[in-house]
């Protein structure tokens, strides 16, 4: 832990230098200024209630994006599978904490356990991690395009399991009555309390990610990203490094899933469809590969677009969803054309 603190202190000492360095890149500076100003103005305009909801959505998606960036950005493994781990975490939380008597709802019953939130949250992360070990062992046999295709396959399989394993997930009906965080009599039931807890989780995940990428382990990940075989011939067990970062990332996604289902108090398979996974990868690329701040900025851009589209006057309500995806798609194409490293990224895809 001493090493972690000393590295934190060193980073704090370097902060002004980093700030000056970031000013060298005008695009990065403008991207930061525009998005942060946009976020500030938008939240002030819409008021605190809106800010609490948007803030929580931001925190949960930011955990997902930061964790995915460990794999896609820092290690160079383009994965579409992340939404599957998010779903596993969400369903673990839902199944373990739901107390609803489904017979009363006249739909299929599933086992209910009535666990408290804080007992279920680590299980959400561990369940995602265990599945990630099994998937990662298989994925380690593949590289490049084939790797992407196999992760694509996992995303489809996980969605099918959520939808069709009705005895466990209640399929398309979804699971209701999911627990909110509570310690004794203190229940974090209000939006403000939940937001504070979600932001705390985001801070924790960002800190862990930072410790991972700034360690010698993280250096090897960057080397694997650049030249996997070269890293191998310098004595690094590349397969093991890839598996470890894959599992860490999946556990973070599982944690985000647990938070998500507790916040929404309901899960169904449609939140974990393939399109969500593609959106998530797009967010990471837009923000910038191999940068934690870039992931946060990418999610901020996405959430602002997502919510901001509601206020476009000439857009009919039924077209808002499609319009969001179109705008995000156009943004992605423009970035790939003019700034392939993303808003504040270090690497091109």
């Amino acid at each position, binding site marked *: 832990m001493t090493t972690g603190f000393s590295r934190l202190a060193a980073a704090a000492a370097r902060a002004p230098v980093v700030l000056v360095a970031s000013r060298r890149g005008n695009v990065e500076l403008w991207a930061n200024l525009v998005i942060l100003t946009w976020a500030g103005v938008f939240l002030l305009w819409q008021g605190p209630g809106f800010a609490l909801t948007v803030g929580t959505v931001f925190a949960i998606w930011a955990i997902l994006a930061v964790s995915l960036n460990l794999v896609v950005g820092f290690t160079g493994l383009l994965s579409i599978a992340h939404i599957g781990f998010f779903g596993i975490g969400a369903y673990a939380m839902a199944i373990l904490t739901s107390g609803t008597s489904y017979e009363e709802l006249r739909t299929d019953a599933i086992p209910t356990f009535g666990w408290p939130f804080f007992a279920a949250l680590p299980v959400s992360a561990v369940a995602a991690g265990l599945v990630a070990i099994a998937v990662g062992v298989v994925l380690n046999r593949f590289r490049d395009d084939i790797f992407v295709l196999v992760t694509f396959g996992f995303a489809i399989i996980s969605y099918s399991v959520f939808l069709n394993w009705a005895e466990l997930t209640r399929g398309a009906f979804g699971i209701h009555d999911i627990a909110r965080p509570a310690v004794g009599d203190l229940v974090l039931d209000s939006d403000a309390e939940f937001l504070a807890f979600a932001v705390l989780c985001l801070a924790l995940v960002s800190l862990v990610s930072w410790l991972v990428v700034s360690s*010698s382990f993280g*250096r*090897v990940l*960057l*080397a694997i990203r*650049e*030249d996997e*075989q*070269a*890293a*191998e*011939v*310098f*004595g*690094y*067990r590349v397969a093991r490094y890839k598996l470890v970062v894959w599992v860490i990332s999946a556990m973070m996604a599982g944690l985000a899933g647990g938070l998500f289902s507790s916040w929404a108090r309901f899960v169904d398979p449609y939140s974990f469809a393939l399109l969500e996974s593609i959106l998530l990868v797009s967010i990471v690329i837009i923000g910038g590969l191999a940068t934690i701040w870039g992931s946060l900025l990418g999610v901020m851009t996405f959430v602002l677009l997502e919510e901001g589209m509601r206020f476009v006057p000439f857009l009919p309500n039924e077209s808002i969803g499609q319009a969001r995806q179109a705008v995000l798609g156009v943004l992605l194409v423009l970035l790939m054309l003019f700034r392939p490293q993303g808003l504040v990224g*270090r*690497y091109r895809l």
Partner: protein
Amino acid sequence: MAMDAGRRGVDAGAAGSAPDSMLLELAGTSVRYRSVVALDDVSLGLRSGEIVAVMGPNGAGKSTVLRAIMGLAPVVSGAIYWRGERLAAPTHEIVRQGIAYVPQGRRIFAHLSIEENLEMGCLHLRDAAEKERRMESVMALFPILGERRRDAASGMSGGQQQMLALGRGLMAGPQVLLLDEPTLGLAPIVVAEVFRKVAEISERLATTILIVEHNIKGVLEIVDRAYVLNRGRLAHEGTPRSLRESDVLREVFLGRADAER
């Protein structure tokens, strides 16, 4: 700087080896990629402290020799011996046993700094003092790396990148350094500098070196012995003088040896 057998009085008995015992040896080694035989019953060896070249035309199997030693090529028959014991460890173990490989094309990590690239050579080393000692030793050998230690490796010239690749290999503290075409794609003046540095590594650090090289004239200036491969088979073994005096290189490179066979 022309040298011949016993280029600088190589101590064959160094590191506790018997005078004629090989530090690293391929014994009747064959490598096959599906139906393609890349190495066919090749035997060669290195004594402690030597610089040994492997030469031959394109497709002769030169790089395959190094890849087989590093566990990166499928050995289908024969064996590789390291200090008299069979070497059958995975690649990451081989590095820790004292064999470092500098692959063809330099393969530096372009987005890392020069210092970070060098550290990649020995990140598994726990002893910080030893790590620092090796860093200083490498920077003494290649002063340009010390002067630009914080710069991104991508900003270096081809020659400087080759120095970085050599330095990164040395950071592992190897007894044997395997160099795959270290002068490939470099300007003639830089090629001479690379060969000088290879000789200097051998002199100053007593590192045994196996070098695969297409620049015959340059490499024969610095090696103790050389092996010539042709179509995966050993065509000749000898000192630089014996190679210069024989027609084997001309025959191999012009294809006449093959025709006679």
